[in-house]
């Protein structure tokens, strides 16, 4: 699609990547650490956008998939290290999240809209409760310390996170623009008509759940081995899920790339305003609210300006 909109998107993307590539030369390890987390969060938000923006499934619990991936990887490492390579743990985490995605998709085939949204929320609460109750296995409320990390070098971690975000972003974006992305969008808009056009809506939606879960789980598992711990408050809490949703909406729904921009913005702003203490959260929330109220197409919508859908 060589249209104006796409080219704008392309330039924004390219500029962001260039800035990200030269950044390690100029900024401190602390900032790199922050961006590492932001990049993983960006993958969370992009995965969510695929499910909601394209397949039209209101998933209020993105942290269910992330949490399953993160905790599976973390628990395996905590129990079998050093016998088990962390890369195997990460793969297992991604796989577990895919299984979680299929489980989550089951209610989506029966109920839709707000009702499905509610089941995803319940899924998060159930996972959270399970982690707290099974403290022996999961570390409970205190969190799970994993013996291994990918690297202790801030730059290495930064490059891994950046590379991971770029590859995931390219795949998710490509998928959203492919034939499958179109069918997904058609199914999300009008399920009955998509069926009457000969598309197996169930199959396509299930695929969207699987892909979204895979990247969510993979990102969650990678982040565990960056942080060295897994805790409910960073991976599972409903509040974290809300942040991810806000990031995706703030950046621009149904764009994939917007979700990444939104996530980096949210985490960056949170940090910039940190000296203000509790006020920081409030200011970021107000900005998010204003953007959502007045620019429902998010940052990318603002940048695209006149090129409205």
């Amino acid at each position, binding site marked *: 699609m060589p249209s104006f909109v796409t080219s704008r998107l392309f330039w924004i993307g390219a500029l962001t990547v260039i800035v990200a590539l030269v950044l390690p030369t100029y900024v401190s390890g602390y900032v790199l650490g922050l961006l590492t987390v932001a990049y993983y969060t960006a993958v969370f938000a992009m995965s969510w956008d695929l499910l909601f923006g394209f397949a039209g499934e209101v998933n209020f619990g993105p942290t269910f998939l992330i949490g399953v991936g993160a905790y599976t990887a973390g628990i395996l490492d905590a129990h079998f290290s050093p016998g088990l390579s962390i890369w195997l743990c990460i793969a297992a985490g991604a796989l577990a999240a895919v299984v979680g995605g299929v489980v989550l998709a089951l209610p989506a085939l029966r109920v839709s809209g707000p009702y499905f949204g509610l089941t995803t929320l319940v899924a998060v609460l159930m996972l959270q409760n399970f982690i707290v109750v099974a403290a022996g296995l999961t570390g409970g409320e205190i969190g799970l310390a994993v013996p291994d990390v990918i690297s202790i070098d801030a730059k290495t971690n930064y490059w891994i996170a950046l590379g991971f975000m770029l590859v995931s972003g390219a795949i998710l974006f*490509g*998928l959203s623009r*492919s*034939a*499958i992305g*179109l*069918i997904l*969008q*058609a199914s999300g*808009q*009008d399920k*009955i*008509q*998509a*069926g*009457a*056009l*000969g*598309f*197996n*809506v169930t*199959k*396509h939606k299930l*695929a969207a759940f699987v892909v979204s879960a895979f990247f969510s789980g993979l990102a969650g598992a990678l982040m565990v081995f960056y942080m060295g711990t897994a805790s409910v408050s960073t991976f599972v809490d409903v509040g974290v899920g809300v942040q991810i949703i806000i990031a995706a909406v703030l950046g621009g729904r*149904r764009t994939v790339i917007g979700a990444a921009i939104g996530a980096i913005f949210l985490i960056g702003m949170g940090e910039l305003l940190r000296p203000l203490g509790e006020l920081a959260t409030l200011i970021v929330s107000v900005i998010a609210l204003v953007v959502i109220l007045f620019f429902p197409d998010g940052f990318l919508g603002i940048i695209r300006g006149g090129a409205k*859908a």
Partner: protein
Amino acid sequence: MSETMSGAPMLEVSGLTKRFGGLVAVKNLSFSIRPGEILGLIGPNGSGKSTAMKSVMGVERPTAGSVKLDGVELAGLPSHRIARMGVGLVFQHSRPLARQTVLENIKVALLPDKLTRLFADKDVDARARAIAERVGLGGVIDRRPPTLAFADLRRLELAKAVARSPKLVLVDEPFAGLTASEVADFSDLIREFRDDGRAVLLVDHNVKSVSALVDRVLAMYLGERIAEGKASEVMQDETVRRVYLGGALVSTARPEASFKDVTPALQVDKVGVLYGKAQALQDVSLHVHEGEFVSVVGLNGAGKTTLFNAISGLVPYSGDVKWAGRSLAGGTAAAIARAGIVQCPETRELFGDMSVRENLELGGNALSDAERAERLEWLFGLFPILRTRQPQLARTLSGGEQQMLAIARALMMKPKLLILDEPTLGLAPVILETLSKALDRLRETTKITVLLGEQNVTFALPHADRVYVLDHAKIVWEGPPDRFEAEAAATYL
């Protein structure tokens, strides 16, 4: 009609039944369509024609019966399988992809149902362009659906449905919302399907709208077939005429000259309403005298509700509406209601979780206690059943009781003009009689002015002093009820 018509049927539906809980929407329906034949499936609102169509497509799963396409059983299959076996449905309303162009929207319909194919075949683009050209979308191929004219949106639906070259094409209300010249264009496109040797099923409200196009018509009422044959035969059919026009009429109409007001109380002057791109009302003029009972009859989608909403100030319109000589244009809905115009909408809008009594008292909110009590007493006289139902929650009432409550609540507001929008919608015949008696008493015992919108002529005519026929957004006939069958039946059947 072509020679292929003599061949074996392509679609054979037999004993089709669809039940929703206790409601039997389609009852033991059988019909067939040959290749190169157009069958019109007609029936008033709620007759089950849409359910029958959806059951063929697999959108609804038939409760019983068989649907065979070229001898292969379709009943019970999911719609995507049925679509791939050669059935296409042209939706009346759909939600096209707003961010993709017309071309891309058509391309979607050409994509394979496979997860392994990330990119469409190379010929998809050329095929999509050819389809766009064929249905007349060639000029708008790079536009996005929200910028399209209404007729072009319908063309897009047609394009998507034919993209997979279905053997059997189902078309839901082919001409709804289209202008005369657009209707001609669409008729040509549908004739092309027939000339290609496809079987076509047109679903519509009445025979007239599809008579020029169809080879055969099947009329449905309350889920069952009531007549089948050539369009002209079905229009002459006794049962069809009774369903659409009602039986012998005992008119009690008062002549217009008997109303003493020189300037009618309500004057609707050249009112037009646009819904996005669809013309919902065009140049509608009518008047109602003080104390007169006027019925506006028209099929579903003719524009009755839109007309009433315009009078009540709920939709913006062009032209003018005058009440007691004063223009209502620009007035808020609340101000118009305070001026004495109260609408009882077809959706009833009762407060479901409040009791019958509470609903009524809310209606009489503006009255003094004594006045309210007196009014309640009068309404319980009019609708005795409501007296016994006072403590019951409104949503637990039967459909007929809910309708009576809705009318009673509107009357609590002491309207000067009562607008009743389709009060018979979804009600059983026995309830209609009760409702009918209540309206009779209302007419005989009060000076209230009533504007009634109905598609059920049997119900609308006996009460009316004067009748307007609304068809495709326009008033096409005006006169006393006893001349309706002779003069207006042809536009209505």
